């Protein structure tokens, strides 16, 4: 094992810039439910105590397992509520959070969103319909709680030498509209009323760019997170992707890139057919974070020396697999995806609550000790 010669930040920035670091950077996508399970506490009880309690649980996990390189803000239910999503809190009987997909967004709302933007729409219309947050004053209180928690988290992780991967994960406008309208209704809108959808997407994209750049510059971070679950070829044919997702994504990346900020795309489900499009983005302008269902090896062949990839030890392997299987897969990733740099070792999507302790240890140990191929 070579001696480490880089800090976590240097290592991650090296990989993101498609150079070869001293070893593969490690940054599991964390879920508080996994952090709770692995530190021996009840997630539903922690979640009932607010954002800060959930942050503390994740920090406790970080300390217990000896730390790793890349971390991100706690993705607590409070964050989803702030974004205008109806959220079911975990309970003792059902100890996971759940975003509730209902038709909160109406057809006529596209016009309103196109005029006033998403967050003004959330504040002025959506929160009343959703009912999780009763007033704008409550929304402000919630926002203050989350912002304070995120800043505290950044401070604590930086003290521990970790690198903050992104200040938040924005939902791509396409995904946000789909969740708020409900998938079937949104699909009908794409089919019957595409121009209205495009008007809203345009406004929301401009808003994301403006707010995201401000957030990154304020936090001193060089990467912004964007999540998308539904625009890939798993759900829709490429002509839908090309009209309703790709142009806005290019706009987002170009805007951030002009400010020296990379975009971290968390892409859920299988994006095999969409990956080639990402070659059109400027080199090293984005990080492609896969959830284990996209073929990461094929993605690497498409994106070699062009974009960094984060992933993808699958949740099933982490929970029902054996440590030797986890170790073998991590080595395969490091050899085949990280051999020339451009890999951040991570879980495929969030670490599941059923993660075995020994499997998580195996992933961390392998990442820290296995040499990048010569």
């Amino acid at each position, binding site marked *: 094992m070579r001696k480490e010669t880089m800090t976590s930040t240097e290592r991650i920035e090296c990989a993101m810039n498609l150079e070869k670091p001293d070893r593969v950077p490690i940054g599991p996508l964390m879920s508080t439910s996994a952090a709770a399970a692995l530190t021996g506490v009840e997630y539903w009880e922690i979640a009932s105590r607010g954002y800060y309690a959930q942050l503390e649980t994740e920090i406790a996990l970080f300390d217990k397992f000896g730390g790793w390189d890349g971390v991100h803000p706690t993705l607590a239910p409070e964050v989803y509520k702030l974004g205008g999503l109806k959220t079911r809190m975990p309970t003792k009987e059902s100890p996971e959070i759940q975003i509730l997909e209902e038709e909160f967004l109406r057809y006529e709302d596209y016009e309103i969103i196109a005029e006033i933007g998403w967050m003004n729409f959330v504040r002025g219309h959506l929160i009343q319909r959703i009912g999780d947050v009763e007033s704008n004053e409550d929304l402000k209180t919630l926002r203050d709680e989350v912002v304070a928690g995120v800043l505290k988290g950044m401070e604590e992780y930086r003290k521990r030498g970790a690198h903050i991967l992104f200040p938040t994960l924005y939902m791509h406008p396409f995904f946000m509209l789909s969740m708020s309208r409900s*998938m*079937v209704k949104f*699909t009908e809108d*794409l089919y019957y009323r595409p121009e209205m959808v495009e008007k809203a997407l345009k406004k929301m994209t401009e808003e994301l760019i403006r707010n995201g750049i401000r957030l990154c510059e304020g936090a001193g971070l060089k990467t912004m997170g964007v999540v998308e*679950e539904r625009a890939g070829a798993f759900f*829709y044919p490429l002509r839908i992707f090309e009209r309703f997702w790709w142009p806005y994504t290019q706009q987002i990346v170009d805007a951030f890139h002009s400010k020296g900020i990379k975009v971290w795309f968390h892409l859920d489900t299988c994006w095999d057919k969409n990956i080639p499009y990402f070659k059109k983005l400027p080199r090293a302008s984005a990080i492609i974070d896969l959830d284990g269902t996209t073929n990461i090896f094929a993605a690497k062949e498409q994106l070699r020396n062009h974009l960094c990839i984060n992933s993808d030890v699958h*949740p099933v392997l982490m929970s029902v697999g054996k440590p030797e299987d986890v170790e073998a897969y991590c080595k395969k990733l490091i050899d085949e995806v990280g051999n020339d740099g451009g890999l951040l070792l991570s879980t495929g999507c969030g670490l599941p609550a059923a993660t075995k302790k020994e499997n998580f240890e195996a992933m961390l140990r392998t990442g820290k000790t296995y040499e990048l191929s010569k």
Partner: protein
Amino acid sequence: MNLLLISGFLGSGKTTLLLQIARHLSADSRKIAIIENEVGQIGIDGQYLRREGMDVQELFGGCVCCTLSVNLVTTLEKLNRLVHPDTVILEASGVALPGDIVPVVRQYASMVDETQVLLLVDAHRYEMLLEVMNPMMTAHIDAADLVVINKIDDVEESKIDHIRKSVQSLNGKARVVALSAEKGINLVALMRELR
């Protein structure tokens, strides 16, 4: 125990159909457990079903595309240990792909003897969804053992026939039943297919 996975988009009538199937199987003296992954009305009916002796497990949360399989295996283990059901009915989220779930069940849930995938399609929306969400729809149809065309009560016979032919052209092995879960039309045909 056997696993019946009911898939289909939100609003296709999965919960209504699940309740019908559960009642029929239970009346046949089979011990039924239900795993609820689609957040809908089952919360209220769950209590009713529990009073009728059926076990209802809620399987929510996480990123369904990748964590459903994980949580499903542990839930099946728990049900097998504590409840010993004859049949477990899983109402999967509309975005979950049975083709991803079934292999994990087959590999890691050895207590499951047989897995059947029932896909529910809404007769009113089938053609639109097949065009706009072609990859998802064809993957769902391809993974199905049984395709149920629902909400046929106010749909013309020719349209139902068209949907049937479309499904069979995409998956020649799938059995197809047309019914109305809400109105109770043709449920007997479905129960015959499930036995």
